[in-house]
């Protein structure tokens, strides 16, 4: 049976609309990104609560901080490379340092713009945002996590960065209750020989890699890190201690990204052999599927890294 695949921007928008129906403080801010953020219906339903500042990301984030100053809950929805790259200083000073209640929603992160190339890829966003004090980073892996993460963001008081993918993904939350719990990693597969740590798009690929490894009698644990910052230290440290080998697979640069975060944590607690898979160079031309495979983020690529790490490659 072919699994149902979801573009997480769709459940994001539905959930935002549901929130807005019951909470008049919820507003949207965007940079000519109504269609790319899937906010057309929101605009039709709540025209006064949609602030489209045009192609002007610095102003977009500053305006959101001003809206938050009045007690509103702005969701800034923009393609992640431009939100986090162009407006980095506004995110630092106006949101993180000012402790403004602004939700930054980076749409279409990683290499999800495929053939459009590295200008449109958002592989640095996690590293940039992770360097900021007090800015949670949330990266849902499927529809259920996306919906619950939006609810969490609205209730959480303070700035937050959400990474919402456009590349279609299957559910990875069966049997997980709740699907999303802020600050808690989901153990989506148990195993003893190696742990694959993944987030967003790479979670389903890590699960498929674990199947491949099982065929070779390797028992792989898979963690879905939907809260990248703050990292669930207990779960990651336990995985390092239990399995002795860590593979991180992420759709972003390892330097400062999830791989960096895991390495920083384990270097000071349970140092174990690790392999950090990520999009660690500007990508060549190609489709999303091609690029994920190119960077070793296919099930086969992740499994190969794990096999090599445990001495079976």
């Amino acid at each position, binding site marked *: 049976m072919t699994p149902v695949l979801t573009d997480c921007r769709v459940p994001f928008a539905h959930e935002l609309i549901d929130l807005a129906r019951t909470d008049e403080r919820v507003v949207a801010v965007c940079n000519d990104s109504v269609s790319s953020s899937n906010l057309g219906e929101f605009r039709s339903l709540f025209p006064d609560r949609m602030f489209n*500042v045009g192609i002007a990301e610095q102003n977009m984030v500053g305006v959101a901080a*001003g809206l938050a*100053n009045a007690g509103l809950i702005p969701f800034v929805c923009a393609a992640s490379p431009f939100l986090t790259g162009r407006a980095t200083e506004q995110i630092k000073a106006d949101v993180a340092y000012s402790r403004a209640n602004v939700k930054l929603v980076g749409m279409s992160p990683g290499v999800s713009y495929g053939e459009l190339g590295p200008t449109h890829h958002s592989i640095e966003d996690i590293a940039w945002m992770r360097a900021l004090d007090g800015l949670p980073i949330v990266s849902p892996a499927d529809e259920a996590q996306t919906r619950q993460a939006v609810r969490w963001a609205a209730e959480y008081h303070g700035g937050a960065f959400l990474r919402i993918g456009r590349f279609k993904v299957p559910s990875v939350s069966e049997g997980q209750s709740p699907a999303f719990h802020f600050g808690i990693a989901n153990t989506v597969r148990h195993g003893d020989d190696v742990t694959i740590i993944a987030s967003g798009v790479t979670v389903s690929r890590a699960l498929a890699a674990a199947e491949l490894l099982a065929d070779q009698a390797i028992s792989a644990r898979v963690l879905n890190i939907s809260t990248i910052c703050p990292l669930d230290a207990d779960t990651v440290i336990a995985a390092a201690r239990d399995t002795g080998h860590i593979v991180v697979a992420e759709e972003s640069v390892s330097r400062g990204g999830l791989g960096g975060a895991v390495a920083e944590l384990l270097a000071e607690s349970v140092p174990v052999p690790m392999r950090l898979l990520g999009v660690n160079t500007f990508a060549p031309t190609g489709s999303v599927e091609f690029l994920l495979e190119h960077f070793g983020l296919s099930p086969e690529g992740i499994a190969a890294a794990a096999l090599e790490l445990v001495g079976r490659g």
Partner: protein
Amino acid sequence: MTTDWWQRLHDAGPASTSDIADFATEIRRTTLVTINRAGLGHIGGDFSVTDILATLYGRVLRVDPTQPDWSDRDRFILSKGHAAVSLYSTLALSGFFPMDWLGTFTGPLSALNGHPNRNKVPGVETNTGPLGHGFPVALGCALAAELQGSERRSYVVIGDGELQEGSNWEAFMYGGHRKLSNLTAIVDRNRLQQGDRTENTNSLDPLDAKVEAFGWEARVINGHDLDALYSALTTPSDRPVAVIAETTKGKGVSFIEDRAEWHHKVPSAEQVELALQELGS
């Protein structure tokens, strides 16, 4: 508890022009002493903006020092956050926080950093310091007031050199597009930036024509004429208003006025004495 200054300016009816002049003098004296004690500050920009701050807090803004978080207060943002000491002096004299905080300015763990922090200083709306940040936030405050059906207004002071940051022009564009008549941007047009004259660096003139072209009403005034300031800041418009306040950097002290080197030079004890004499009381 409000301060004597607040009571004089607000509780006994509307403040007079001479009340505001006295308030401005007291802000300058307090600023001078605070900077000298800390050995750090931006006295030139502090003194160019002082009359603007005195007018705003003395007779324009609807704010309450005893309830700095009152939800329907007017919003004021000092985007040129390096002029923090003039703002701190104004807020302390108004009663937003105790005067003795000023003695801690830049000291270890003081609430009063070199640039204002909204989470530590009552009356500060957003953290400024990097240039080009305050205007978009003030624009967001104005949009929120419109959405919420509130009569409250938003004011932002921008340095003229600061206008070289492109984010301001993004804000001018959207504010003009939205015809936000509840928003006033005040440009402290002292014609000096840290390194040189603005017109030698990246010229801004004709500034009034530029902002008019963005859909704003430009009001060019002498930024030290208290009556002109009051009028420019309170006369309604059907558009957002840009008050281009022609000012003198270091205004009020002859040897500081209009000199680039006084951007962040700290006066000596002798210079403080001379300056206090010139300012009067």
